[in-house]
């Protein structure tokens, strides 16, 4: 109790000095207004698995020999090189098996962003031409407003190069319907890119249905175009990645979201799809991605993908329960909130680990900094954390007003989280929101204060 009062005294020192005669009254008032006291042992609660993940122990172990022992260049002819090359081919085969693809469909890259860039810039620069000329080259791309910037920015670059791009508007939960995609196809469309699952709101897009519609369109028009690309970075550990069932021609995956190493990913490319490389040099990866292979990374990535796919059903179920428990607790303890994205169902509509909530009347960065003080990591769609001062393009594409986007927090759960983490978070979150609401002049949730004149 002494400690508590001491802390209070420090907090409200200025007011105390002026109103020392009201001291007792202030203490009473402050007791209920104060932030929850910090726990003596600060815990790290990581609730930002969509940003990146830690490396799984088995993955780390699998990678270790390839740091200093099997360090050979897979292109070298001597034994050390041949061993490395053999390992590389094993990885390619294993990954191909998971995707139900052929080993020569797999291009290992330096991560998800590179794979997206390679798919979009590679296809369009190879077979597209903005001015439909005598050879019948084409230049139209379809994508969605809620893609990751690794897809949106290459599309914007292609617009500068003369291509045209249609950015499909999702519905209020983030879904893009196959119908909408089909309606946007033009005779000159060469590429369609739709993400498998959204990183901010967890919406799982109907990729297989979209793929089927595109197939039908191609058949009806006796054409090989448009190609279909999906960015499946967020889905790597959650959804089935069978490229035949999904009807995709190109697919991006990476290691850093599935408990694998950062800086390694892959682009699945169906045989017959031609792309132009972004990086030229020694001709590795079938000439499509030069540069000495990051073998340790590739081994780790392969291991991580294998583990993630093996355990995905149980893990999905565990995470859905945990996430739903978290949301129930938030609903029970904090008023004036809004769930962003689809309903909290199973992994066919929303990623099992994703929770995106707007806390009305408070701003995201402020919440984030307070949570950080208690060791809780999450992220926000607020503008304050971006250089552009614009709130999240995903949340605004859903039709959310700016003030809602500014007050959003994204929690993404993962392997390390248990109910204990959620309970720890809920010990502090209501108090933080309460305090920031008290400090906030905005009152969209409640009636206006009596003293507001304007």
């Amino acid at each position, binding site marked *: 109790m002494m400690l508590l009062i001491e802390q209070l005294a420090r907090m409200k020192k200025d007011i105390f000095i002026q109103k020392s005669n009201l001291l007792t009254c202030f203490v009473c008032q402050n007791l209920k207004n104060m932030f929850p006291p910090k726990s003596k042992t600060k815990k790290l609660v990581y609730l930002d698995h969509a940003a990146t993940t830690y490396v799984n122990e088995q993955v780390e172990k699998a990678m270790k020999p390839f740091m200093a022992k099997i360090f050979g260049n897979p292109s070298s002819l001597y034994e050390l090189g041949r061993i490395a090359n053999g390992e590389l081919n094993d990885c390619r085969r294993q990954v191909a098996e998971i995707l139900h693809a052929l080993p020569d469909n797999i291009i290992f890259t330096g991560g998800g962003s590179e794979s997206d860039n390679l798919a979009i810039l590679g296809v369009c620069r190879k077979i597209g031409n903005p001015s439909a000329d005598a050879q019948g080259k084409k230049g139209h791309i379809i994508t969605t407003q809620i893609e990751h910037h690794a897809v949106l920015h290459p599309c914007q670059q292609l617009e500068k190069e003369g291509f045209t791009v249609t950015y499909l508007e999702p519905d209020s939960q983030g879904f893009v319907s196959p119908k909408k995609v089909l309606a946007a196809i033009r005779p000159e469309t060469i590429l369609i890119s739709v993400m498998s699952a959204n990183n901010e709101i967890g919406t799982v897009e109907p990729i297989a249905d979209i793929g089927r519609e595109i197939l039908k369109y191609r058949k009806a028009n006796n054409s090989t175009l448009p190609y279909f690309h999906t960015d499946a970075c967020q889905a790597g550990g959650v959804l089935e990645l069978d490229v035949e069932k999904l009807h995709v021609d190109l697919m991006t995956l990476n290691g850093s979201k599935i408990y694998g190493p950062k800086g390694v990913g892959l682009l699945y490319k169906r045989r017959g799809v031609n792309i132009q490389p972004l990086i030229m040099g020694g001709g590795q990866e079938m000439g499509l991605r030069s540069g000495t292979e990051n073998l340790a990374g590739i081994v780790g990535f392969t291991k991580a993908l294998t583990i993630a796919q093996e355990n995905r059903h149980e893990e999905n179920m565990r995470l859905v329960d945990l996430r739903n428990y978290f949301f129930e607790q938030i609903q029970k303890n904090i008023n004036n909130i809004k769930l962003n994205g689809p309903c909290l169902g199973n992994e066919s509509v929303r990623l099992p680990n994703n929770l995106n909530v707007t806390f009305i009347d408070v701003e995201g960065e402020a919440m984030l900094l307070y949570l950080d003080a208690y060791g809780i990591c999450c992220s926000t769609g607020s503008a304050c954390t971006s250089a552009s*001062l614009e709130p999240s393009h995903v949340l605004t594409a859903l039709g959310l007003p700016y003030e809602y986007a500014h007050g959003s927090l994204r929690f993404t759960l993962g392997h390390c989280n248990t109910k204990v983490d959620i309970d720890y978070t809920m010990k502090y979150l209501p108090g933080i929101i309460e305090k920031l609401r008290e*400090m906030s002049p905005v009152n969209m949730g409640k009636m206006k204060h009596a003293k507001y004149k304007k």
Partner: protein
Amino acid sequence: MEKKVIKTDNLKESVDIRGVDGSGWLYSDIVKDHFFNPRNFMQYGEEEKFKFNGMGRVGSPACGDEMVLWILVEKESEKIIDCRWRTFGCGSAIASTSVLSEMIIENGGMLIEEALKIKPQDILERLGGLPVRKVHCSVLGDKALQGAINDYFRHTGQHSRIVTAGKKIIDKVLNITDNDIEEAVLEGARTLEDLQKKLKVGVGDPEAIPQIEELLKFYFEKYYEV
């Protein structure tokens, strides 16, 4: 002047926020202190009791920052003897309002003549600096204070003292004046987009955009065209 005491309870670990371009920055200890231990904000239940005779409001939640400042001016001495605030915004917005509230009521209160002279730079200095891109959006305190003092003048019938001289308010929501736009042009803004990045001008008040574009052209020609 009272010696600045930095409270260290919550500050053992630094808060590091990075921009998309990879440039890192750190909130100063003073910013963190004011953020984690805000002074003089209007608490729940205080609205009905707190006496004030001037109120200023600036910003809107759509822009990401909004601030309300209530001041109590002692009529005889023209000193601001008490104030309260509420802010919707990021860490630096909350801290800058808190520090402003401390500035205007310390040492028995600031004369309103002095208070009208407070510039964003003064708040920044006292905060120990802020990352550049946070400055325009989060330091709204001086504008809220000017609004509150004008409100006080209005209340007390001193209409002739209401300060608008030399400045014309262009964006009514953020109280951004032609001077702010001139300054932004001098700092390198060339397009409406640049201006909006710096000042958010026109975001909450789109009607002002034609006028903003006109001013942009005017100041650009004034300073840069031969």
